[in-house]
């Protein structure tokens, strides 16, 4: 039992944190967002040079041959930076195709995705992240819980409240279940995509928490730092609790994806439920703790709030995952009775 990143994983995290601090500052994110959700092309090129879109793709397809935990580590850092890039969708789609795709699907899509030559979109037809310009989409079809692989679709740009990312609505295209004929594999693919989104949310929440802590330690009112007020302290404590809850479940889901696939359905539901609600709560709290400043465009915490709202939508909301968890619990209880 060792519930922490390995030294190698910590090193990936450190490198990502440093790189993104240098290359994807708030000024850069803002520039991309204010330009109408343009992506930071220089950043994307750099991420591709590092091979990160293919972090969880096998070496035979030009990937790094690492796993879902390493992907989660990167996604947390990209979320932390609120980076304007198609990384989430491309890397998550690649990881899902790698783990669950048929041989033909892997051969067709992985090389170009791993190199970042082409990008992917993830989501639903009503809301697809990074869909515009994507070569392939991994869409989560709600009723069956199976992920569909869609190519040749029409992706109409959808301007959302989160201009740090491009979104689209999807119509048409050729759709097939991800994997050999759908079923468990296609459901696992969907769970992997959700686990990836949840990992991003952890970073978003972590950043919101850190910005808030820095602010309330600095900002003074009535002669003392506002962080000394118990109401502010309790708010920050709750933010920590929500962030750590999202982190524990997101790491569990990433670990289960590779190491204990039979636990993935539950782990992914846990991660999705915790991230969808927690991300919104933490980032809303960050705005509140910043007071009037937090409500301004200049303060940057709002990018995190907006990203958390869209990520929650990509996850389909917490509720369906809680329902799934209740059903799983009921099944277990019934089985042991």
């Amino acid at each position, binding site marked *: 039992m060792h519930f922490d990143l390995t030294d190698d994983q910590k090193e990936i995290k450190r490198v990502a944190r440093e790189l993104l601090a240098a290359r994807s500052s708030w000024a850069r994110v803002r520039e991309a967002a204010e330009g109408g959700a343009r992506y930071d092309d220089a950043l994307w090129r750099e991420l591709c040079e590092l091979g990160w879109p293919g972090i969880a793709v096998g070496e035979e397809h030009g990937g790094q041959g690492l796993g879902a935990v390493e992907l989660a580590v990167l996604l947390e850092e990209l979320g932390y930076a609120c980076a304007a890039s198609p990384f989430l969708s491309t890397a998550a789609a690649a990881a899902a195709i790698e783990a669950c795709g048929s041989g033909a699907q892997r051969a067709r899509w992985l090389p170009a995705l791993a190199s970042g030559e082409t990008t992917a979109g993830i989501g639903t037809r009503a809301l697809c992240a990074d869909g515009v310009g994507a070569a392939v989409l991994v869409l989560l079809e709600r009723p069956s819980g199976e992920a569909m692989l869609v190519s040749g679709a029409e992706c109409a740009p959808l301007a*959302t409240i989160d201009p740090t990312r491009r979104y689209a609505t999807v119509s048409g295209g050729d759709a097939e279940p991800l994997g050999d004929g759908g079923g468990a594999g296609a459901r696992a693919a969907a769970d992997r995509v959700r686990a990836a989104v949840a990992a991003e949310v952890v970073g978003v929440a972590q950043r919101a928490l850190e910005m808030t802590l820095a602010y309330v330690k600095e900002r003074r009112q009535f002669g003392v730092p506002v962080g000394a007020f118990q109401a502010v302290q309790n708010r920050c404590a709750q933010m920590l609790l929500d962030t750590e809850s999202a982190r524990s479940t997101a790491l569990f889901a990433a670990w289960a994806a590779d190491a204990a696939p039979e636990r993935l359905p539950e782990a992914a539901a846990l991660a999705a439920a915790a991230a969808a609600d927690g991300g919104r709560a933490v980032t809303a709290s960050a705005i*509140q703790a910043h007071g009037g400043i937090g409500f301004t465009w200049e303060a940057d915490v709002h990018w995190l709030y907006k990203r958390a709202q869209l990520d929650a*939508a990509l996850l389909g909301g917490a509720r369906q995952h809680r329902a799934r968890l209740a059903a799983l619990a009921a099944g277990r209880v019934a089985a042991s009775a």
Partner: protein
Amino acid sequence: MDLTFDARETAFRDELRAWLAANPPGTPPHGDEDAHYAWRRDWQRRLAEGGWAAVHWPAEHGGRGATLTQSAIFYEELAAAGAPLPANVLGLLLAGPTIMTWGTQEQKERHLVPILTAEEIWCQGFSEPDAGSDLAAVKTRAVKDGDEWVITGQKVWTSMAQYAKWCMLVARTDPDAPKKHQGLTYFLMDMEQDGVEVVPLKQITGESEFNELFLDGARVPDANVLGGVGNGWKVALTTLMNERSGLAFFLQVRMRQLLDQLVGEASARGLLDDPVVADKLGELHLRCEVLRLTAYRGLTAIETYGQPGPEGSLTKWMWSDTNQALTQLAADLLGPEALTDGAPWAFELLRARGNSIEGGTTEVLKNIVAERVLGLPRLK
């Protein structure tokens, strides 16, 4: 106990309804903030012509001497008719009554009518970057120079400053006063001068309701001191304590309309049969009604005991919580279309985050409730 309107109140409401029916506010112009504000200004002019701009003002100043309940009815009906708040809302609710209380005859004659007609818009210069909610920490300085005062400093969160002719400005005239709330003076400052710079403060919605105000050698003549030099704390309290409960009714009706709209959209999608959705909508309905009832209880308390009490802190807190829950539920129920840039629900979702900050953060409101309503001790 009587939760119906009495004959006078009913007559007031019916007269207002008839006037609103004959003078519909029309639909707001889309998109452009300036056009929207011009619409509100025009709307106030029409209200003033009909004698409806300042119902709570005494008749001698162009009002109707409305009771608090009539004021509440006024704002409820305004909201119900889809009308906007009058453009000069700060002038009507804050500047006017403060000038009536503390102003000289000249000041009253000079200022009250243009407030009423929206000819001269007012803004409020209280908050400062490092003072926040703490008026005693005001740093903006006013230094005497002949029969004028020279003002230097910075104000924030001044809504409508971009349209304002006048500013209710609190500045420090005696930095050596033994206590910090002493040595403040309340000025009526002309915004149209060099030395006053208005910089819009863009919000997370993308709009700019608020501004920063940079004062660099702005000048105010002695004649525009309100309530006497060094008396700013007391005068400002009049402004702060002024009865804004009518506004609360306006906001409540708006929230109720928003909820009804959500119920309608949920119904159109067949979501009302979902027990979880019904549970949440029922809770929001409860909270809206609690707000309305509690606000009316507050009105009766004020009418019975005189001064407005601190109950307003309770309703403001409830309102902001409820509006945030409501707009988040809309995003949950309506999905991506409620998160689309420019969609009304998306705007409401973002705008609602400001509710628990503007006009006293929820943290400050809870402190006020704890100390002034519950009598709990202060730390230190």
